[in-house]
């Protein structure tokens, strides 16, 4: 190969690298390596002066290749490749050697770390001469955005994007948008009513011409790549012509099947088979439940709904529709599900009456809920005493290890609502630690103390119905150690509220696989970087917002939704986007036309060209996995940026020391 002049730049990263790796030694060593013309060390290579070093060496010292030994390329490769470009070097002639995440941070012994740093760096030094200039592929960007999930996060993101004139597809699985927030009564700590602040946004989203609402729909398949996603959406049959339906709910009143547990009311009330989940639903359209409707389940029915429907909107023949949509960016806002307390058998949820989950209490305390906002036990009487048990399923190695962040606050909110409705009722909060981290939260906690709620520092041991004393007769008994007193107490109460944690949706994993990004070990969607890219995923063009990423309160969710919208906008507002040129190519001369690669390509990016009797790569479709390269017996397909000889050279370099 021609004489190359390699510049090596080794970053101290303060003491992050230099604290463990002997940077001077590595620099000295690097200077002696083949083709290395210059080896420098610098405190912070990512700083402007650091980047200038590279630019200068290119301009003044004729550097033709460069390697930066510093942090992970996922962190700063773009930074340094840009610097190289600014210096007049093709960006792909610069490589990074990850001696921080993969070396200094994970190794204790300094000598060992220094040796490893040399190997990691050596691999890149050996590879560089074989690097060839590449041009990023510029592809057009589809300006439309898809938002998946119609809770407060999805609604907010969709509205923000629509306001910039972008077309937004808002996909919601349920018949109406609104998500969990629509089920809440009040919101902490300000206690403004959830409906009052949410419904305006819901109807705004419904009216917004730039938002195409796809309620009662689910994403089934995602193809393509940043700027050019092809999404299949299944629009489930409502058996209602939504153009004709006026949302008058006459079909609901007419329907003979009336005993379906209402999802929206957590099963505390019943709905008909033809239903509108709640009065403020958007879109305000009826849905016929195919699993309960007599006609749709093949039973006899006089179909009074049809008779009741003026505009003749009911259509039992309606079928699921499959839409194919093209968008440039996707925002995931699929939310959470409440951790089901049933497995925590010692709290007798589902076994004893009046042991209820937090979402059930949200509905009970809600003016539009099953009890009209009257806080009552199953027998219709107001509870004289209520225990609120914190950390149900949370901070527990047997269930969910993490803290769900919102439970302490919503539990305080419950206590307040109870005191507001029933001032005479005794309220006990059994907590491990009171976590009131947000704006105005600690003040709210103080306020509740003043409302003489009983705070017991201790995680409830069990909820029992066995009465050991007259005052326990017919009561639920909460057994808990008051750890501040060191005394175990038995609290006889009429109602127990289980403050369950927030859990990832049961199908979060499957969803993440459809869209092609990962989940964290706790099951929530994995962000690209926990601090600097909390709303991005590893897949360019796909963003996340709200509780699908991690439990968070409404303010944080709304803020994140805005951030995700901005991220998507920053992408789709451009005519084109540059994608990595590290894709495969096939030399028709060498190819024997054996078809192996054609069948193996995950993206059908290789097709067989009959007249050339050779396979050929469709560049637009190739995503650069390199499967074809590895599969070909004669090594004909090659992958730019990952040529065999480049990988071989890295191997050699990694083993010279």
């Amino acid at each position, binding site marked *: 190969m021609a004489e190359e002049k390699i510049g090596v730049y080794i970053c101290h990263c303060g003491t992050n690298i230099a604290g463990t790796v002997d940077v001077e030694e590595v620099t000295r060593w690097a200077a002696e390596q083949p083709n290395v013309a210059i080896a420098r060390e610098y405190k912070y290579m990512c700083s402007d002066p650091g980047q200038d070093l590279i630019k200068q060496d290119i301009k003044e010292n004729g550097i033709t290749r460069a390697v930066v030994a510093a942090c992970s390329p996922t962190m700063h490769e773009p930074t340094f490749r840009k610097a190289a470009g600014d210096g007049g070097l093709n960006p792909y002639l610069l490589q990074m050697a990850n001696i921080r995440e993969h070396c200094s941070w994970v190794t204790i012994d300094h000598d060992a770390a220094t040796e490893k740093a040399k190997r990691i760096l050596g691999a890149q030094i050996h590879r560089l001469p074989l690097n060839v200039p590449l041009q990023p592929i510029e592809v057009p960007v589809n300006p439309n955005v898809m938002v998946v999930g119609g809770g407060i996060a999805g609604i907010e993101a969709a509205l923000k994007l629509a306001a910039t004139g972008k077309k937004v597809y808002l996909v919601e699985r349920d018949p109406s948008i609104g998500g969990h927030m629509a089920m809440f009564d009040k919101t902490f700590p300000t206690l403004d009513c959830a409906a009052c602040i949410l419904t305006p946004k819901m109807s705004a989203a419904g009216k917004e011409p730039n938002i195409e609402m796809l309620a009662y729909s689910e994403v089934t398949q995602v193809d393509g790549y940043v700027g050019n996603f092809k999404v299949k959406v299944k629009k489930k049959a409502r058996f209602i012509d939504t153009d004709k339906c006026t949302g008058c709910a006459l079909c609901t009143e007419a329907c003979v099947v009336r005993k379906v547990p209402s999802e929206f009311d957590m099963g505390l009330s019943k709905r008909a088979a033809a239903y509108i989940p709640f009065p403020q639903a958007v879109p305000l359209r009826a849905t016929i439940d195919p699993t309960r409707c007599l006609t749709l389940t093949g039973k006899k029915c006089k179909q009074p709904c049809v008779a009741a429907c003026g505009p003749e909107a009911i259509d039992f023949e309606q079928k699921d529709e499959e839409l194919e949509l093209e968008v440039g960016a996707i925002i995931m806002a699929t939310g959470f599900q409440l951790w089901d307390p049933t497995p925590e*058998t010692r709290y*007798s949820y589902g076994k004893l009456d009046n042991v209820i989950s937090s979402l059930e209490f949200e509905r009970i305390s809600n003016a539009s809920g099953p009890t009209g906002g009257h806080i009552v036990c199953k027998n219709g009487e107001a509870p004289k005493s209520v225990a609120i048990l914190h950390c149900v399923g949370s901070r527990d190695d047997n269930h969910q290890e993490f803290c769900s962040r919102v439970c302490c606050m919503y539990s305080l909110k419950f206590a307040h609502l109870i005191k507001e409705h029933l001032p005479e009722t005794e309220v006990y909060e059994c907590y491990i630690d009171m976590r009131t981290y947000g704006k105005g939260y600690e003040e709210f906690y103080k306020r509740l103390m003043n409302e003489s709620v009983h705070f017991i520092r201790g995680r409830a041991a069990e909820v*029992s*119905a*066995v009465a*050991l004393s007259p005052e326990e007769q017919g009561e639920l008994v909460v057994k808990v150690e008051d750890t501040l007193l060191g005394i175990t107490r038995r609290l006889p109460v009429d109602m127990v509220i289980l403050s369950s944690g927030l859990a990832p949706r049961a199908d979060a994993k499957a969803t993440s696989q459809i869209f092609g990004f990962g989940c964290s070990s706790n099951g929530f969607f994995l962000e690209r970087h926990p601090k600097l890219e909390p709303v991005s995923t590893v897949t360019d063009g796909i963003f996340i917002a709200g509780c699908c990423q991690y439990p968070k309160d409404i303010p944080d969710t709304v803020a994140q939704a805005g951030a995700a919208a901005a991220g998507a906008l920053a992408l789709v507002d451009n005519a084109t986007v540059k994608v990595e040129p590290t894709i495969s190519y096939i030399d028709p001369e060498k190819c024997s036309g054996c078809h192996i690669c054609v069948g193996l390509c995950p993206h059908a990016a290789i097709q067989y060209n009959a007249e050339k009797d050779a396979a050929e790569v469709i560049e637009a479709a190739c995503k650069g996995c390199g499967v074809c390269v590895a599969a070909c017996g004669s090594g004909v397909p090659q992958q730019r940026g990952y040529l065999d000889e480049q990988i071989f050279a890295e191997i050699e370099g990694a083993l010279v020391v």
Partner: protein
Amino acid sequence: MKYLYFPGCSAEATGKAYDISTRAMMEKLGVELVELDDWNCCGATSYFSVRELDSFAIAARNLAIAQEMGDDEVCVICNACYTTLAKTNRYMAEDPRIFEAVNGALGAVGRSYDGKVKVRHIVDILVNDIGLEAVTERVSRRLTGLRVAPYYGCQFSRPMGSFDDVQLPTTMDRLFEAMGADVITDFDAKTDCCGGMMMLTREDAALRLCHELLTAARQYKADVLVAACPLCEMNLEGYQPRVNKTYGTDFNIPVMYFTQLAGLALGADPKQLAMEKQVVSCDPVLAAIPA
């Protein structure tokens, strides 16, 4: 069907009826029980308090004998024995140092144990090996209308949880439902503690726990409490008069070994089941179920 059988020390004294009824019940089911040769005390909780390895080693001696007798399973009827023996297995598997030490000790008496003998609770065998169908087929006296409160006690599935849920066991519920009884499946105290050995050392503490259990049984309108452990049975049944004396209560709740009630359903004669050995008479139970 044939099982190696570890009766446990209580079976020779206060829990004699448990042993007798176990053999009778198994006979009715056509299952042969071969008593483990020259078995020794499992060590119970006391041994753990002296030297942990001692307790593992002497428990392992029994398992070693089972291995020598060429069997890979041993049937245990006492919750405490069950937990001690099963725990020995688990800890030997989890910690090679324990495995070494135990085998070193057994080596000193010319024995060895490979840790492969499965320790089985008799309830587990009844429901999961013999199976509810097979059992129900042989029921000749259904327990129709009898309100049975299955009392599992502590060490039935805690902490092992190998055949039933650690928090909420249900195996006995299913057994007696299959036998036609009106089982109190939501019996809230079913896994609470009876006080165990404490009955001798801190009677007040143990009596209080028994009082709570009997109170629960009454609240749930139980005709009979069934136990799967001689200690539980002894405390709840034998000491019932003392509970009454201490708390001024008038409990007279029959407490039976589950093998006695199951044996009854399988057509065994009360005598065969040593029901006359109970301190609290079982006659109400006999009266309650159609002959």
